[in-house]
């Protein structure tokens, strides 16, 4: 493997990412399964990087899961998205910052369709106006939340308390990066590093001391497939995809997985549990699983946030092996302690923000 070859490709895919004044839209999956990640993201953006990130209470889903579950027609989705733009205009922001990869992909795709078929955009304008009386202009900049963390990875590294380094051996942690399919597979030029060798997570990992490992099924989908997970009868497919990835990465002995899509970490986490239940197989060292993280969680750990404030207790596959390797000071007994003192303080600070 020649890393120089990848660097040449990375140079070709430098997308524009806004610097400040972001309009944040939340993710269906991330809110439910990784609430600590969205909280950590806003803490990092506001408290660490001093950025203006606005959230409108009236924004909603983009309907992405319904759209890709094929129950929501394309024009309905486009009009809901147009409404999101309208709310952003109303708040006086221009830089759209979705928390979700499917949303990011959908926004990108819709803007592209409108660009090529202006008559479709015209129709959506009319429908939005008719339904809500709203008008809109499209965002000036569209970046996924992981793009922004990538952009400020050096600033985060400068304030890091921990590194992605095994404290006992001094070796970098071996990290598998898993990119959500809708990040760049549809529009390679809209992803940092492109579709084949995305750099968005690899850049963070490298900057924070870890080593990214490439493996044959790196680009494979986690298997969510919308309807393929939503309906129980189809989950055999969904889990088989993740299994394909685990089998392929196992020989490289990864310490952890980092993800940028909200769904992928949940599936990569839960399917390890199910594979172990069905087949008695685990893919990490010493009969452990391979801990799976969101990029917000990893950024939070690097900055020294309490693992239980980040929500690592919500993972089914234990994250502790990584905490140990990084030498993070944490209290194991607080993991499932619902009444830890910190919670109210954190909650209050968040609601105020």
């Amino acid at each position: 493997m020649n890393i120089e070859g990848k660097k040449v490709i990375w140079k070709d895919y430098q997308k524009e990412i806004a610097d400040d004044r972001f309009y944040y839209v939340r993710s269906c999956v991330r809110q439910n399964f990784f609430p600590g990640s969205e909280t950590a993201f806003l803490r990092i953006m506001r408290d660490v990087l001093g950025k203006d990130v606005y959230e409108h209470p009236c924004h909603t889903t983009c309907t992405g899961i319904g759209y890709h579950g094929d129950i929501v027609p394309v024009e309905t989705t486009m009009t809901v998205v147009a409404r999101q733009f309208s709310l952003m205009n109303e708040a006086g922001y221009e830089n759209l910052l979705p928390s979700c990869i499917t949303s990011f992909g959908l926004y990108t795709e819709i803007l592209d369709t409108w660009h090529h078929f202006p008559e479709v955009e015209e129709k959506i304008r009319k429908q939005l106006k008719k339904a809500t009386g709203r008008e809109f202009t499209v965002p000036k900049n569209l970046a996924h939340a992981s793009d922004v963390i990538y952009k400020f990875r050096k600033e985060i590294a400068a304030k890091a308390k921990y590194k992605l380094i095994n404290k006992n051996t001094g070796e970098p942690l071996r990290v598998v990066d898993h990119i959500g399919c809708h990040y760049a597979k549809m529009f390679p030029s809209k992803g940092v590093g492109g579709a084949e060798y995305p750099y968005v997570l690899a850049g963070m990992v490298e900057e924070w001391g870890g080593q990214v490992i490439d493996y044959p099924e790196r680009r494979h989908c986690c298997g969510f497939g919308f309807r393929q997970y939503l309906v129980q009868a189809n989950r055999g497919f969904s889990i088989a995809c993740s299994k394909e990835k685990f089998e392929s990465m196992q020989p490289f002995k990864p310490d952890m997985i980092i993800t940028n899509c909200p769904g992928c970490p949940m599936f990569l986490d839960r399917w390890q549990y199910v594979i172990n239940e069905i087949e008695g197989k685990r893919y990490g060292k010493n009969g452990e699983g391979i801990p799976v993280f969101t990029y917000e969680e990893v950024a939070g750990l690097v900055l020294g946030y309490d693992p239980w404030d980040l929500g690592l207790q919500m993972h089914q596959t234990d994250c502790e092996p990584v905490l140990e390797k990084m030498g993070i000071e944490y209290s194991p007994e607080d993991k499932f302690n619902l009444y830890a003192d910190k919670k109210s303080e954190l909650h209050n600070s968040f609601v105020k923000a």
Partner: protein
Amino acid sequence: MEAAGRLAKSGFHVTLLEKETSAGGHLNDWYKLFPDRRDSSEVKRYLDDLMSSEQINFLTSTTIEKIESKGSSYSLMTNNGENLNADSIIVATGFDLFKSSRKEEYGYGIYDNVITSADLEGMFRKGKIVLHDNTTPKIIGIVHCVGSRDEKVGNLYCSKLCCVTAVKQAIEIREHLPESKVFCFYMDMRMGGAYYEELYREAQEKWGVNFIRGKVSEASENIDGKLIVKVEDTLAGRPLKMEIDLLILMAGMEISEGSKKLAEISGLNTGENRFFEAIDNHYGSNISNLPGVFYAGTCTAPMNITETISHARAAVSEVQDYLKNGKS
């Protein structure tokens, strides 16, 4: 070279401008030629002999910086500051091989054992086909249509010669490495030249080369440094996955950088495929949009050596005709 030699023989004063230090272009890099697999140096020797005329002023390491029409002739300024006058010009700026790293999913320049057809010719010249770690490959894959018939890289056309090159190289690999297995991944076998189809048959019959119909979707590297190739075996209607030791990319042909630059400074027309565009594809394939400027060879389209030489001779005839009758 062909055109220069022929014109000189007919008594014209010819100046040959070559951007490299010697003439011959890609022929210099090739080991043996399809379909009869004669040594490329034999053709080169023929061309060199043609060039030995004293009527030819051969300027190497020379490119054109400026080109101006002076009534019935052209004035050319070279990179060496020289000014040349020409009554007629033949453009024979050739082709470039597609830069295979642009097909990112095949990992050329990233995975150690992914090479191009040109790299393989280099190995043939050295008489040694080896992997990055100097061991001998056992399973070899050949990917057709790399940079051809592919909207993703902006080339809609077929480069025409890669199929037969693949077959030729597959046979040569089997000759060099009798223990090896070779797999060609193709979309269509375009063996449209004299004795090409026969070579394809020989590859199957005598050399046991395997042909799988499907465009390779991606290559990746496993922990042992082997390449994993994903393709659909379209004739079986099933996706197929296999481990390969050495993967060879059949790089297609593109307009050369030199041609691009010339097009910019001269006002010569290029087509949708970005090659130079002749005024008529059927009966005027040497004639450009500028009076007295003619094309020869692969600067207009992918061609093999036979076609290139024929095209050059036709250009000579156009020049002769132009200088005798057409010049106004």
